[in-house]
């Protein structure tokens, strides 16, 4: 087991790109080595030790690395990008692209997350104990494949375009979702605990469950009886018929 605790020295105004903060990168490194890992502060390069107080204990492979980050990281982006194993716990808010393209491991955010959480992720798990903003689990601009595996849980609300171009994996939102969740879904599962609107446009495969109120239903679905989900009965819709989709939309 290797544990690394990072504590933000001072809140930054200029954004930091921290794609180097991941268990894969930290595995087997000493405190001093970790302090020497480069980060981008605006257009200049700094070292991790300049931004964070680093306390490391033990040395192990990536799957046994636990990174705990304390402080307000709301201007620190790309934490856990491409990570494949291990664990990151963030005690505070975090900036965009957290956990994007990750393939394994676990990220827990005890605070709010910004846009693009878990974009294009292929495996692993992200839990946000707070709200997240736009494009959770989506594909980046122009890409036709978003999240393709793994699981994202948001214990709070999310904004628009949840799980756009998703093609696998699972997203659970306990609160409300903004406009157009599950756009172009091609095989993923999305469960929304609260309210949302205009869900599941261009869905080809997969399932979207809306436990709360679907304020506006896109007129692109065929009603197909009812279906049970977690002990509750929902009206079942199949579509999007415009794209000959066979996705399932469950609505109260």
């Amino acid at each position, binding site marked *: 087991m290797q544990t690394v605790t990072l504590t933000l020295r001072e809140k930054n105004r200029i954004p930091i790109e921290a794609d180097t903060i991941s268990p894969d990168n930290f595995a087997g490194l000493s405190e001093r080595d970790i302090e020497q890992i480069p980060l981008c502060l605006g257009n200049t390069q700094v070292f991790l030790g300049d931004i964070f107080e680093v306390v490391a204990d033990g040395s192990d492979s990536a799957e046994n690395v636990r990174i705990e980050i304390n402080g307000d990281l709301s201007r620190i982006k790309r934490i856990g990008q491409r990570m494949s194993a291990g664990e990151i716990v963030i005690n505070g808010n975090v900036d965009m692209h957290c956990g994007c393209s990750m393939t394994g491991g676990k990220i827990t955010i005890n605070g709010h997350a910004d846009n693009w959480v878990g974009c294009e992720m292929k495996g692993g798990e992200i839990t946000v104990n707070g709200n997240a903003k736009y494009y959770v689990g989506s*594909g*980046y*601009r*122009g*890409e036709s494949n978003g999240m393709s595996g793994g699981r994202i849980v948001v214990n709070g609300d999310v904004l628009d375009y949840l799980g756009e171009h998703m093609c696998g994996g699972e997203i659970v939102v306990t609160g409300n979702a903004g406009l157009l969740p599950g756009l172009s879904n091609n095989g993923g599962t999305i469960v929304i605990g609260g309210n949302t609107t205009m869900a599941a446009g261009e869905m080809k495969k997969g399932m979207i469950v809306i436990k709360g109120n679907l304020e506006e239903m896109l007129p692109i679905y065929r009603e197909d009886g009812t279906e049970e989900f977690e002990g509750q009965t929902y009206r079942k819709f199949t579509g999007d018929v415009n*794209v000959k989709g066979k996705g399932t939309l469950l609505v109260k």
Partner: protein
Amino acid sequence: MSELIIKNAAVCDPINGINCEKMDLAVKDGKIVENVSSGADVIDAGGRLTMAGAIDGHTHCAGKINLGRLMSPHDMRMNPVPGLSGLQEPTPYTRAQSGYNTPNTFALGYRYSKLGYTTLSEAAISMLSARHTHEEFESIPILDKWGLTLFGNNWHVMNYVRDEQPEKLAAYIAWGLKASRGFGVKVVNPGGGEAWGWGKNVTSLDDVVADFDVTPRQILMGLAEANEALRLPHSIHVHCNNLGKPGNYETTLETMKLMEGVKTTRDRQALHLAHLQFHSYGGNSWREFESATPQITDYINGADHLTFDMGQVIFGPAMTMTADGPLEYSNARMLHAKWSNKDVELEDGAGVVPIEYSPKSFVNAVQWAIGLELALMVEDPWKVMFTTDSPNGGSFVNYPEAFALLMSAKKRQQIIESLPNLAVDRMVLPGIDRELDFYELAVMTRGIQSKMFSMNNIGHLGVGADADIAVYDIIPDQIDPGTEHEKLKKAFSATSCTIKSGNVVVRDGEIVATPAGRTYWVNASGCVSNDVNEAAMKDIKNNFRRYYTVGIANYMVEDEYLPHPVEITTEVN
């Protein structure tokens, strides 16, 4: 200016009939010369393969490619060919690079230079957007450029063809070349682009274009004759009707036969067929789709009035972009892909659709084979220009892969074995064991371009030629291209040294200087009499008043858009 001598070069220069002979090349003031003084800089080629800078005679490097960039932000991150694609950080000499099929302008210049290319021919300038095309040209570093101007669906052209006014037609073309600072006449799906304005297309050379009462056959003949009357350095450059449709080889054959009657006024072909691979399909439906290369190459082997380029397909993601609007609509529908469509007022149209060529798809596998078949089954390499119609068949950064395939029957066989059986039954490639040598490859990448565009100053290494030189890390008599596929590909992917107009721009595969390139354009007004010109100008001005959204003065590409121009003039003998 400085002097330079390249010693111990294994020079392969087909225009001068030199086949991998050890010699020295002297360079002075950006030109190849007989000899230089003893103070000249020395580059020791160490027996490496040395050719003239290559010329891409049909590529989409400015203009429509920008529409592709807008449509595919994810292309910026694609990196299937490391070193020649994806995000690359700036260096002391280069700016940041990104993309694969639609790289940024700087990346185009750097990456082509690394492959040993020094000149590009943009395949389609639409006149109304020509100012922007020239701005893009200017931001492509190192390389020389020219563009072929679209005339195949132009209202003026169709009117003059219908009214049988060949002199006015020639005057219009000369004016159009000046307006767009273009190099030659490009014809895309003649008549079809105009019909697309009404949601239709033309399907044969004899379909009538609504409202204009002309046929593709008449448009092609009219433009070819005007092209000759203007004594343009290049022949008409034709993208035939019915591109990409099963059974289209018959239209292609008809187009080739039609041009037998054209009398050329310069020592070059009467017709250049663009991306012939997309026009050599047999069968009556996608189910029956098969290679029609034998029918096409039988004809070409017996004809001497034409040249063509391959339009080779590379497996993987590509970006189709063409002035053929109706084609792109059917592509987008068939592939459920993103689609962009553009109508250019009185002139033409355009469409852009991303595509992925998969070796598992039987149609794509046959397309891949047809490109190679065309190059290998046409006996005379002086009729074949190497292209992938970049990025339609695949990005130019894959040229080394395709070169190596042309040079190795064994490698081709390895790939054929991995293709679906159905595809292998529909192609003729498995029976072909021809392997190109360096000389033939140099013909297809340098020699033919020099001749077909009448560009005597480039594409060869004779005394007086521009000092555009590529040195590859291959010693010709110490490599067997038939078996050393990877080694060959690696050498063609990054030159030991690329020299542009006497300046070393690439060393050991890295960019070391980025001088600005020049833009060639053709001024053919010397072949138009004043009376005819005045009469044609009256028509043009009239059409501008009635139909165009811009005034004529805002339409012409002005001198400021070409800071590095090279004007080529044509005159009546």
